[in-house]
């Protein structure tokens, strides 16, 4: 057990189906209550769907795993009701230092981008994240969470998936229309369905240690290449919550994991790194080998894979849980539309396409970082060391140093759900169709808030105006008409000046013009935002027919 954290123990309740012997029939099951399964359950619940969530365990993530949650993940967590808790408990860091052999070659200060609600990242042990998500899920009666319920078999027949679930009191059967497999990297469901996952294992091992520092120690990220206390390898030191520091020692493939884990071998390594005088206590040690792989497709009929079950990356760049949360975000609204009969099942193919695009970007970036950190050949090591040598004095060298590229969301520029810009509509910003929307400070009814918290979970037409009083009746009528029909679009006026908009349309004030600048907006500019806060389309003028056809495109109804 850890000294700084008490693992919650979630209550197991005897499922009523065991006594009744009846098959439980539900529309939707999520298997796995890790961060991604919990996120999926919360997303689907917010879409108005009842969720049965099964997990074989009765607590949160054990030991040291995910640490770093990036801005996009924090924005998504806001919608699951845990953004504030994660940011309050998590620690922010801005200064990163890079060392090569004996000396510091450079440092950087990631000053948070102004005018964003959430910082670039916070560091927090994964068990806290899961604890908050589990509490948020437990507070919603539409989510039935069954701990210590293990799925032991799965069969797909036609439109039904049949699960056999094992508990300490015996077995029962569940029939469901949809199964979301969030059962982690080893995914028993993937295996039971005989599905493949392709990729490579990195021929390297890492020792992960969590230590509690007894004295003040800076909130910084330190990365060493080839340090004197651990020659030939790399070491990463990262601050987490509760004065716990995470240390990753690269061990090399030949290391014996059992030997390396022993305290008598770990402690001297850490002492050598910190200098003997600093007091610390060892909280957790384990040895990992990393995989980089993904499934060929993420949806197989009515079984859909998300999170580590669908894809795994090396942890350089913190892309595992961060991307899993984006899977949940991408899937929830699509599944809701399909279940409601408002979109064809083909919309779920776009879940697979878009998240594979993102997974490939994550795999590419984490593989590049791994190749830089652990060179595979002599010439690769020579180049790496040359870069580090040049980085000390030259900016171009620093740009080449790659000790992990922090998780950022994919710009889904090639998605078939996007409506390309019209020929005459010129834009000069990053908010292209497929882009994850940029945040901005806004005021609603005199209260300060953030743009990203005002949209999401449904389609939104963001209409930019200068003076809201000047909107003519035709514009107001056109905007109001968007909320009618099968797939409603929420109209949202965002104006530079204060004032009121007629017709009960939601209205935000962009007092300093930050949103207008980030979206390169002029009065009359319209952005169609998807329920997952990606841009679907944009225009220089309001045209209801164009918005409707872009919604049709974004929902595979075109």
């Amino acid at each position, binding site marked *: 057990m850890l000294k700084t954290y008490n693992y919650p123990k979630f209550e197991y309740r005897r499922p009523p189906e065991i006594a009744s012997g009846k098959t439980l029939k539900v529309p939707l099951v999520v298997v796995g209550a890790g961060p991604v399964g919990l996120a999926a359950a919360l997303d689907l619940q917010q879409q108005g769907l009842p969720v049965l969530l099964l997990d074989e365990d009765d607590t949160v993530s054990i030991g040291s795993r995910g640490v770093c949650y990036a801005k996009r993940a924090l924005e998504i967590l806001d919608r699951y009701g845990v953004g504030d808790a994660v940011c309050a408990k998590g620690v922010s860091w801005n200064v990163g230092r890079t060392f090569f052999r004996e000396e510091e070659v450079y440092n950087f200060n990631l000053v948070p981008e102004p005018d964003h609600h959430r910082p670039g990242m916070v560091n927090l042990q994964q068990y806290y994240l899961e604890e908050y998500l589990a509490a948020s899920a437990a507070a919603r009666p539409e989510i039935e969470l069954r701990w210590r319920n293990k799925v032991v078999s799965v069969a797909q027949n036609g439109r039904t998936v049949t699960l056999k679930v094992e508990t300490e009191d015996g077995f029962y059967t569940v029939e469901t229309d949809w199964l979301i497999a969030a059962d982690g990297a080893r995914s028993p469901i993937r295996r039971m369905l005989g599905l493949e996952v392709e990729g490579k294992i990195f021929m390297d091992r890492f020792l992960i240690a969590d230590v509690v520092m007894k004295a003040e120690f800076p909130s910084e990220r330190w990365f060493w290449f080839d340090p004197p206390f651990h020659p030939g390898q790399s070491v990463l030191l990262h601050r987490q919550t509760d004065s716990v520091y995470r240390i990753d020692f690269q061990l090399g493939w030949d290391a014996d994991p059992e030997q390396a884990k022993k305290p008598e071998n770990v402690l001297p390594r850490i002492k050598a790194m910190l200098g003997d005088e600093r007091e610390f206590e060892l909280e957790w040690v384990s040895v990992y080998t990393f995989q980089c792989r993904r499934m060929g497709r993420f949806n197989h009929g009515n079984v859909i894979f998300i999170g580590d079950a669908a894809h795994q990356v090396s942890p350089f760049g913190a892309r595992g849980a961060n991307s899993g949360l984006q899977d949940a975000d991408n899937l929830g609204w699509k599944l809701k539309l399909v279940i409601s009969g408002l979109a064809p099942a083909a919309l779920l193919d776009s879940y697979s396409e878009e998240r594979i695009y993102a997974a490939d970007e994550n795999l590419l*970036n984490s593989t*590049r970082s791994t*190749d*830089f950190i652990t060179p595979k*050949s*002599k*010439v*690769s090591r020579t*180049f790496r060391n*040359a*870069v580090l*040598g*040049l980085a000390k004095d*030259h*900016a*171009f060298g620093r*740009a*080449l140093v*790659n000790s992990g*590229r922090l998780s*950022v969301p994919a*710009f889904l*520029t090639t998605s078939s759900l996007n409506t390309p810009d019209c020929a005459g509509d010129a834009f000069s910003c*990053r908010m292209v169709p497929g*882009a994850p929307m940029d945040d901005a400070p806004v005021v609603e009814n005199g209260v300060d808030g953030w743009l990203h918290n005002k949209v999401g979970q449904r389609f939104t037409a963001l209409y930019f105006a200068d003076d809201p009083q000047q909107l003519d009746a035709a514009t107001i009528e056109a905007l109001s008409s968007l909320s009618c029909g099968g797939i409603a679009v929420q109209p949202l006026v965002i104006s530079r000046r204060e004032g009121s908009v007629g017709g009960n349309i939601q209205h935000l004030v962009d007092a300093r013009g930050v949103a207008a600048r980030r979206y390169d907006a002029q009065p009359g500019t319209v952005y169609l935002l998807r329920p997952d806060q990606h841009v679907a389309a944009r225009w220089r003028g309001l045209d209801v027919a164009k918005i409707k056809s872009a919604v049709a495109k974004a929902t595979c109804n075109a």
Partner: protein
Amino acid sequence: MALNLNPNFSEAGKRYFNAYTPADDFYELLINTHRDLSDEQSELLNARLILLLANHVGDIGTLREALKIAREGV
């Protein structure tokens, strides 16, 4: 022409959404070009590459500066 020591990679027709991407694109290309070569072959590849790039730069003053910086760090 002064030697440019600031980040300077880009590819025509490509739009970058992250500042780190162009340098990482180049570095991967460089390392991949060496894939499956022996150390000796890699050395030869590097020599050929330097000659190609040096001719492309052309300006001997610039090359002198680059050679000097390269030598100082060895």
